[in-house]
């Protein structure tokens, strides 16, 4: 077949192209800070073999943990990381994230048009420079248990509904929880909270704490809790990824985008200022935009990738892109106290 022959030729040319790179990077270690499912060991191994490097994957499951790790040593502990567009801002502010050389990431040209228009996506560019490449995105909808919830919920307020007291699984993360609580308690700018907004959000979140069974961190945790306890609602922090996981585990669930709109995150790859080898980090980003790697996101994790068009389910419903928040540290500190069980009177 001529196609195959052409493909073979391309492969040979490609191999020739990467050869100098592999020799230049051989023996190095690339330190990747990312999320579960973004860098499966088999895919990492392909990269390691191709460029003769070692890849050290560190996984985080909350934005707070991501911040803690990158901020700890001013980013020196990692070369490349995945963060959502909202979170990215504080990394750019701190100088942890640095502009990318797009020429090193040719695979970005195969992304869907909406992700190729990098200057239209809030948070990705600053002062005319590109800081990140979109990798995957998801909206945080609401999962409901068809056996316990008769009518599909229409709003996130269902999580506060006393009918589901002790049957709600919320997410153990500060930023989104505050944004969510602020939106539902009437704040105009849920990403830029004022003192009054804070007060209302804390109150709202303590109310949430009183209504939930517990707060989960890992999607697997949610699956286990769903299995062991009568769970009616699950805040889908991991989006469709989590829906797929629960369905695989045999849960009879539905998934809705609430009418007031779901927060959605867009996760991007960014390179740290103190990366040992920025070129290798960019090679990694380029690699993740190859068809098999991006495809694995969808096939294995149920996450949307940036190469294919979104499914109809994801396309429907109102999406509120995450934005940088006014003070992530403050939100995290407050959340930690809420999580620990401090009563409203203490705030």
């Amino acid at each position: 077949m001529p196609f195959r022959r052409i493909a073979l030729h391309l492969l040979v040319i490609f191999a020739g192209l990467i050869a100098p790179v592999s020799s230049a990077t051989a023996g190095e270690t690339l330190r990747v800070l990312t999320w579960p499912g973004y860098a499966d060991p088999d895919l990492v191994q392909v990269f390691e073999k191709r460029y003769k490097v070692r890849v050290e994957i560190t996984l985080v499951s909350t934005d707070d943990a991501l911040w803690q790790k990158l901020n700890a040593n001013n980013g020196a502990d990692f070369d490349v990381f995945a963060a959502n567009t909202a979170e990215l801002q504080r990394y750019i502010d701190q100088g942890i994230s640095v502009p990318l050389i797009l020429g090193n990431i040719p695979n970005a040209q195969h992304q869907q048009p909406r992700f190729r228009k990098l200057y239209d996506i809030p948070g990705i560019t600053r002062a005319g420079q590109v800081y990140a490449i979109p990798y995957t995105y998801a909206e945080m909808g609401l999962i409901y248990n068809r056996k316990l919830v008769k009518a599909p919920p229409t709003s996130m307020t269902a999580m506060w509904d006393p009918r589901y007291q002790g049957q709600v699984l919320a997410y153990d993360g500060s930023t989104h929880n505050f944004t969510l609580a602020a939106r539902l308690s009437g704040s105009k700018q849920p990403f830029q909270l004022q003192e009054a907004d804070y007060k209302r959000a804390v109150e709202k979140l303590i109310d949430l704490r009183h209504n939930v069974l517990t707060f989960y961190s890992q999607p697997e945790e949610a699956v286990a809790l769903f299995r062991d306890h009568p769970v009616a609602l699950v805040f889908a922090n991991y989006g469709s990824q989590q829906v797929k996981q629960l369905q695989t585990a045999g849960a009879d669930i539905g998934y809705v985008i609430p009418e007031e709109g779901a927060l959605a995150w867009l996760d991007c790859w960014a390179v740290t200022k103190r990366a040992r080898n920025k070129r290798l980090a960019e090679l990694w980003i380029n690699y993740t935009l190859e068809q098999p790697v991006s495809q694995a996101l969808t096939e294995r994790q149920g996450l949307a990738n940036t190469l294919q068009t979104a499914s109809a389910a994801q396309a429907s419903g109102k999406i509120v892109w995450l934005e940088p928040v006014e003070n992530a540290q403050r939100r995290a500190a407050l959340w930690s106290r809420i999580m620990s069980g401090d009563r409203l009177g203490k705030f």
Partner: protein
Amino acid sequence: MGRGLGFKLGVLLAVFGILAAGLTGYYSYATSRVMLAKSAEHDLLTSTQVLARRFSLALDEVASNARLLAALPDVAPIGKALLDPGTKPHRAALAQTFSAMLAVHPEYFQIRLISASNHGIELVRVDRDSDKLTRVKGDDLQEKGHFPYVFNTLRLARGEVYLSKIAINHEQGAHSGLGKPTLRVATPVFLDDGKLLGLVVINLDLNGLFDLLKTDLPADYSLYLTNETGDFLIHPDPSQAFGFDRGRRVLLQDTFKQAAAILDGKTNTVVERDGAGGDQSLIAAFYKLGFGQAEAGRFVIAGLSTPLEKVLADTRQLGANTAKIVAAFSLLAVLLAFLASRLLTRPLGMMVQAARRFSREHAMGELPVRRADEIGQLARSFNDMQVEIQAHLAELQESRSQLAHLARHDALTGLPNRLLFFDRLEHAVATARRSGKQLAVFFIDLDRFKEINDTLGHAAGDEVLMIIAHRLRSLVREVDTVARLGGDEFIILFDSLGDVHPLTMLAEKIIHGLSQPVEIKGRQLQVSASVGASLFPQDADDANGLVHKADVAMYLAKTRGENTAHFYAEGEERAG
């Protein structure tokens, strides 16, 4: 003996000895080494099991304490107060009990009574805060209803105990326990009427507990503890423990490959040699321990490791000892080999000496003939052979001297023959020539001897010749040589003569002596002889000349009428 048999034998014996010692040493070393390693593994596994057992017992004790606290009479008034907000809750007594419990259990971080209602509000709480105990009161009491250890415990029956996952405690305000590996042990609290009041929770300091549990273990033992997915909870390198809490999982099965069998449920114990690899090679033992309620098949894996280096050090000591023993035995073997070779080669050396002496001197040396062994036999055979050879040699000598005698003497008369005579004559001429002395040669021929032969036979003739020879011998000095030239011809050499004159007398004496009758077969025979004499140096100056001249003179005597003597005179020649 140089590199002789003794040396070779000694070397061979020494090599055998060293080889035997070396091989025995090596095999005992190898066997002991394996046994040592096995015993180290066994010790390790036993210690691990003991440790796990202690952990299990410690957990049982914590559970008992939790149940004890849950059943205290102080609990009931607190429950009543909750139900009837008018009553002042009396919590100080219970807090004191908690404090007392914490005081005697340094491994407890925190003890709490948590309400089943009011979102799991803490009712009584005492925290460890460094070296003191702090009672948390009022607004500082927190709502814990959303924590698994609360909602899971509240589902239990009276007396049942909940063990939480072992995790880092992130609950703000937890004092000493904050950020520390914690195990929560909880049991529900019921009022007398069977109503669920809440739960008692003891927060257990995992590291503190294991520090207590491992106190009497050898110092070089390192402790491991993992949860049921293999995540390290305790690790000799603290940065490897609770990796999952920091987003980087560190798994037992990644470091200790064989331990995966425990996680797969194939076995409960695993001993792994050379675990970490490289310089930090370890022997490690792991033991699976059931944990919490049997329901979900929960477990932890306890493990101990010891540096392979330490076990090897023992075997190295063993090796050094074995080497010393082997060296000592090898030395002994060399000594014994030397002695044994001496024992064998000394008699051999004696025989060699004897043989050399025998060939040199034909005399026997000392031989170890008294020995009863093969060497004795050999010596005796050697001795017999020597005796035999000596006998043969003597015989040979005898026959050789006989032959020599025969070659130089006349067979009939025993007198020297012509050969010997000429030898002596030439020798005498040479001597006389140097000393200037005189010699005389008498040529004697029997008269008419042919007649005797013809008339009386050859036997009689021979008898006559023998008698004549005997007479001639008796008529001259011992130093003079009487020889038979053949037939009836005799010749005499007179050596070292002083004067010529006595020669005429001597000739007369001979003629007279021979003319005496001879008795043969009873008959008296009359014999006579003619004598010719020549002198040195007057008549000739060499042997042939002297004999010739004497022959000529004898011939002249014969022609002049037998039975007479004639001295050669110059110019005389034998007529015809």
